[in-house]
């Protein structure tokens, strides 16, 4: 009886959430603003899914990005590209953000994001050969979280890269993990200011920072090619936790004037009904788990 009641409550919470959220709160167009001849695009270029070491499916990642009002995401699994292609397919189906396929090329020597590729890059290749393959596919290379241990390998070959991750969620950590310091990333960028600054969440799990850390890309056209061109031209702007910006000052002025005219809409908080439904469902789940334990029989 308890079990039946729990299942009923759980099903009711699903239906109510569907009506409250999936059905009513959908269909918002994800179009970037325009200013000064540019599309101002919110993008996250470093996202993982369950098909690598993340928790979410490629479909759920797309939905999470849509809810966080990102215009563009790059799904970048470790050494494989096909999950990104699944995410792109799903996003086109549901009218989600523009998905650029990518790969986090992961080896002992370095990690970097190959953005805008369709075929996986072999992680065993040396950097010049890997870069050549990326270029042949029309993509670009972003240095991922350049912590100090990679510097000696990256420094001599830095000209092969187009951009670098300057902003990473680790900047919010009260105590940064050993050897993984955000200050190293900033220092690396400051030594190589010709690289385009990128802010990425390196998303793996939970609510995370998706939507609160992003790169603003200033592109002449809202397309994969337009975005790749903009990054190659250095047309990005990123902001750290203290409000300091990295990127061209002219782009910052453009953003300031645009934001004063059209302030960003705040992310909607869940309503009281959603909260009640969520907790009721959780309570039902707990009852379901605690009812009906059995011992092994013959």
């Amino acid at each position, binding site marked *: 009886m308890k079990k039946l009641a729990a299942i009923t409550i759980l099903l009711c*919470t*699903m*239906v109510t*959430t*569907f009506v409250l*959220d*999936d059905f009513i709160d959908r269909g918002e167009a994800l179009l970037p603003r325009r200013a000064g001849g540019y599309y101002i695009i919110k993008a996250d270029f470093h996202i993982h899914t*369950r*098909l*690598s*070491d993340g*928790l*979410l*499916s490629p*479909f*759920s990642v797309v*939905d*999470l990005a849509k*809810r966080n009002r990102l215009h563009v995401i790059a799904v970048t699994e*470790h*050494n*494989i590209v096909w999950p990104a292609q699944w995410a792109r397919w799903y996003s086109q189906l549901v009218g989600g953000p523009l998905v650029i396929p990518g790969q986090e090329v*992961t*080896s*002992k020597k370095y*990690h970097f994001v190959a953005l805008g590729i369709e075929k996986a890059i072999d992680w065993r290749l040396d950097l010049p050969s890997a870069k050549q393959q990326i270029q042949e596919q029309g993509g670009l290379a972003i240095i*991922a*979280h350049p*912590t100090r*241990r*990679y510097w000696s390998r990256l420094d001599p070959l830095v000209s092969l890269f187009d951009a670098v991750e300057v902003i990473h*969620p680790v900047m*919010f*950590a*009260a*105590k940064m*993990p050993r050897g*993984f310091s955000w200050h190293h990333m900033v220092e690396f960028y400051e030594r190589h200011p010709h690289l385009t600054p990128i802010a990425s969440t390196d998303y*793996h*799990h*939970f*609510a*995370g920072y998706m939507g*609160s850390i992003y790169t603003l890309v200033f592109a002449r056209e809202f397309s994969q090619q337009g975005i790749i061109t903009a990054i190659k031209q250095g047309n990005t702007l990123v902001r750290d936790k203290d409000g300091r910006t990295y990127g061209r000052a002219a782009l910052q002025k453009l953003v300031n004037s645009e934001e004063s005219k059209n302030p960003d809409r705040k992310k909607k908080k*869940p309503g009281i009904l*959603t909260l009640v*439904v*969520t*907790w009721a469902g*959780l309570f039902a*789940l707990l009852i*379901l*788990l605690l009812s*009906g*334990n*059995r*011992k*092994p*029989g*013959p």
Partner: protein
Amino acid sequence: MLKRPRDRPLEALGTYLLVLASFVTLTTFMKWHLFHLVNTALFWMFVPANQLLALFLSLSVAGYRRNWANVTEVFLKMQLPWYLFFVLLIITQLSTEANLSLFQLFSHQFSFVLFLLTVLAYSLFLNLVLFTRVLPAFRAIMAYLAYYIIHTGLYLVFFSLTDQLQPLLAPNP
């Protein structure tokens, strides 16, 4: 005479997947979503599949030939400490509304690590109880050890097949 209740291994598997999917969905979206629950359950199916395959292989090798449906159901229900652990994580995430990952929230807290270790130890103990209930003592212990070896091996095979073994073994930055 009392009739023994019917075995429901599929129902137990459903509960297992429901917990996993609820954990991922609620800690991410902070609310229920049928679509995300279903697709998360599908994408996480390899975890119980791996455990059940390891259970089947280890018990078979040890000579167990009786009620597989019952053993499967009981084994899945014995994951209760983990289920409760995941529910606790959901409650923490929902009640703190933290815009950060739970790992950050907990990574430096001794109490969390202690709790995790307790759950792990209790779970190891429950699995041992299951093996000793269905097999004689010596064979049970051998099968129990074989279970964990096979379990680990199957994960290595799975990650190799999905091209993820090398990234997992590559050192983190």
